[in-house]
């Protein structure tokens, strides 16, 4: 369960304070698929970053399974991410000096999982890239890189998957493929999926849609289509 209570994020821009998120409160139960949409600059990515503990809110609290993220140290946050959170970025962010296979391996090695290699191989096969494991990120297409990033995000059996416009840098064919893969893995693993997207058609396929505007929650509604899916 993810709980956001009156979360505000203010950043300093030049000489002025800029409010990115303004008193946002949300609850995301385990296993739910939530799409966060909104215009550019509405605070979507910031919201996601705060949930992952990549940044700290200016005020308010974020609880993950009852643990207060906002009071954790950098290292405690790292441990939390390692155990519970998977993250997928718009621009993939694979480590360029490691092969595709090693990129998937990394989170498991950080956690100290014993069957890391066999699981990495399984994940490679799950994302249909069994034969591309020894390639470096620069040798892969955008779609392939994002599939590796998804495999990496699922490596440690996270309870929460956070995806920041994962299809934003891909063509529609590849985009759909990635989305299908994500939802498939979400269904199989029963993880909470928070998807930030511009694409309304993708957002419509989520169980719930939160719309942000100027840092505030404009609407928070269940999606009929998503629920039926």
């Amino acid at each position, binding site marked *: 369960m993810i709980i956001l209570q009156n979360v505000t994020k203010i950043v300093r821009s030049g000489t002025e304070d800029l409010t990115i998120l303004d008193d946002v409160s949300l609850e995301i139960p385990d296993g739910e698929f939530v799409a966060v949409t909104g215009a550019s600059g509405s605070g979507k*990515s910031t919201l*996601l970053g705060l949930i*992952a503990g990549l940044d700290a809110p200016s005020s308010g609290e974020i609880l993950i399974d009852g643990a207060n993220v906002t009071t954790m140290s*950098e290292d405690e946050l790292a441990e939390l991410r390692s155990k519970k959170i998977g993250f997928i*970025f718009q621009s993939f962010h694979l*480590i360029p*000096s490691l092969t595709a296979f*090693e990129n998937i391996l*990394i989170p498991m090695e*950080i956690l100290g999982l014993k069957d890391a290699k066999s699981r990495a191989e399984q994940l490679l096969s799950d994302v249909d890239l069994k034969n591309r494991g020894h390639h470096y990120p620069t040798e892969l297409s955008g779609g392939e890189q994002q599939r590796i990033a998804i495999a990496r995000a699922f490596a440690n059996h996270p309870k929460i998957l956070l995806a920041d416009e994962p299809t934003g840098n891909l063509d529609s064919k590849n985009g759909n493929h990635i989305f299908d893969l994500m939802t498939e893995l979400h269904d199989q693993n029963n993880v909470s999926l928070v998807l930030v997207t511009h694409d309304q058609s993708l957002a419509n396929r989520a169980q719930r849609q939160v719309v942000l505007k100027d840092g505030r929650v404009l609407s928070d509604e269940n999606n009929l289509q998503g629920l039926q899916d």
Partner: protein
Amino acid sequence: MNFIFNLTWREIRSSWRRLLFFFLCIAIGVGSIVALRSLIQNFSRSVGGDARALLTADFVINSSNDFSPTDVSKIEEVIGSSTIVEARNEVTETSAMARPVDKANQNFSFVELKGIEPPFPLVGNFTLSGEKPFDFKLLENKGAIVAPILLDDLNIKIGDKIRIGESEFQIRATFDEEPGGTGGFRLGARVFVSKNAFEAAGISQNRSRVRRRILYRTSDNPTDLITQLRETLKGTTITVQSYRETQERLGEQFERTENYLSLTGLLILVLGGVGVWNVARVFVEQKRKSVAVLKCLGASGNRIITVYLLQILTLGFLGSLFGVLLAQLGLWLAEWRYYDVLPAKMSYAVHFPVAWQGILLGVLISLLFSALPLLQVRNIKPRLLLHDAGGEKTRRLDWTKTIFGAISLAGLLALAVWQAGSVKVGAFFLVGLGFTSLFLYLAAVVLTILLKKIKNFGSFSVRQAINSLYRPGNQTRIILLAVGLGAFVVLAVQSLQLNLVREFDFTRNAKLPSLFFIDIQKSQIDELKQIVQMATSENVQIVPTIRARIAFVNGEPFDFENRETRQQQGIIGREFAVTYRPEMDENETLLAGKWWNGAANNIDDAQVSVEEEMSKSLGVNVGDWMTFDISGRKIQVQIANIRKLDLRNTRTAFVFVFRPGVLEAAPQTFVATVLKKLPATSRAKLQREIIDKFPNVQIFDVADIVAAVQKLVNNFVLAISFVGSFVILSGILILIGSIALTKSQRIYENAILKTLGAKRPTLAAILLAEYGLLGLLAGIIGTVFATALSFGVSRYLFDIDWEFDFTLTILGVLITTILVMTVGAIASFDVLFRKPLGILRSQ
């Protein structure tokens, strides 16, 4: 731990090319230290390692006079009561002039004559040419064994006769190795004759420039015996020398030299450290995203730092190993290049303890210089993956960084102290290096600011080149610091060499004589004056000299059992040439006391003037009493004044000058000097004439001495330039490393310029202009600082005249510019041939 080791290995696998410069920086530094330390240790082992062989005895009794019967009986009494003395012999030594007996052969030479008696040698080897053993029979009936070079100098062969003093000697053999070795500064070739023949040659009569030594071989440690002898001989000018003390002194000297050389090595290693710091800094900058990803995936900052630290340690260790290999190659190079000037039996292998020390130093320097840049990893926030704000905000005072900075500095100080073997020298080294770097860096800052002011002038290429020097993440100041430091060291040494050589160029010093005639007897003065006057039309200056040793200072004899006094033995315990005169010389200045007025009338007026440095060594001042031993007689004098000698403007230089009326009756010889600069042939003719007429007179041709000193200076300069070239090499490595580290930006800029229509020649011109400007600035910085250092050292340390050398300055700037331009162009030339589309897409 698995994660740390796996990631370390994977990172090394992918980043080793980028970190190659790191590896090389450490390798060159470690290589220099290991090579220099091994070289000096090998040298000391082969030269000073066996002081017993060097002394050719277990202990030696020295005197510059004949041993008086009283002295001999005292010595015999002590020796007779000892059971450990196995053998003894006596040796007499002097320098003399030698010439072929054959009248048609007009050559002559200065020789170091040694009279020996059996058993010889007591310790060590005496090997004749052709591996023949030495047989004393060869010296019987006025036979001589000579150094091979004398045959060349005099153009004679074995069997020919030479004249030394009053006697003729037949050359029976030459030698390859003499007992005690051939080291040290020698003006003449060694000639061995029998002791009896030496005495018969008349060289030792009426003069005291003969060193007499009694050598002993013992079956056990002679320390107690030496203490007893010193006690018995206290108050005489006879000294006792033991090989153990010699070994101890030599050991200390070599250790000091080794430590100073190691500091030079450390300088190169620290420069390598600057390279390491630079590489680590930019490496972390390039790894920001990877670090953020790792943090996002759950790795803690400390674990990531550990990964990079392990990577640095591995490369530091491997680089150090490679450095040891380089050191061995360097030693083989030294063997190949300097085989003839280094000792014959010297080893050229790297010593294991030295190698391990070098490796430890390399790893520690890697660690110290990369710690601060690596700490930056802590400040990388994973949020940059969402919004890259470009750079992390850091707290105003980062305590961890401050503490680590202090630890790094303390570590560096500890390394310098360790290498110098002294806290003071180590601290001076570090502070000196710090200030030099700071000044060089400030100069770089000022020059780059000035350059920015003129960036709107010049062609498109020059303007772009200047802009390139200010691109984000530029390495301009670091390159200027590193290359400037290298140019500074090499140019300072060159400038010092020019000034030193100029100083010893006697043609520039009107007061320095061209010829010295010494050991002239009173009866020979008039005739010698006449001959010299005929040849030079110069009124020759004749100065009386008396040989004296210090017996007591304020009634106390020197205690050579005391270690500190023994270390000064060479300065205060030696035999001095003293003189007497009523007036002060032009080149002398009074520092304390008064000059005398007229001759001393009675024993209470006996006075002496002491040279400044000697007064410091002796710890004496005006009013103190000194007792001199002159041919066995003790003469007590009071110090009338302390004098400063201007050695630059000197004809003769005496440490002790007596008031007239004291020494006139003492056995004395005379020195004559010729100021006129004669051509070499006239000089040789005059010398030969004097030798023929007065075989006892020794002649010093200043041109020969100048040549010998110049050779010494040149060897010294060669050695320093060799080290300086390593400094330049480190500077160039930093330059190449910096180019490699900013290459991606250069590639991107070139892609944009190409897209906008710039052709390859334009891009090449920008590249050349950029590095040309860098080289020019580094050259200017190096030359300015080198000139300042050369001036300071010449004027205040060496106390010699200093002249600005225009050619050296221009050449220094020009060569540095061309060097940096060439290295820079070669290292980044491939950038010009990249296709722009792929590069722009990947950004």
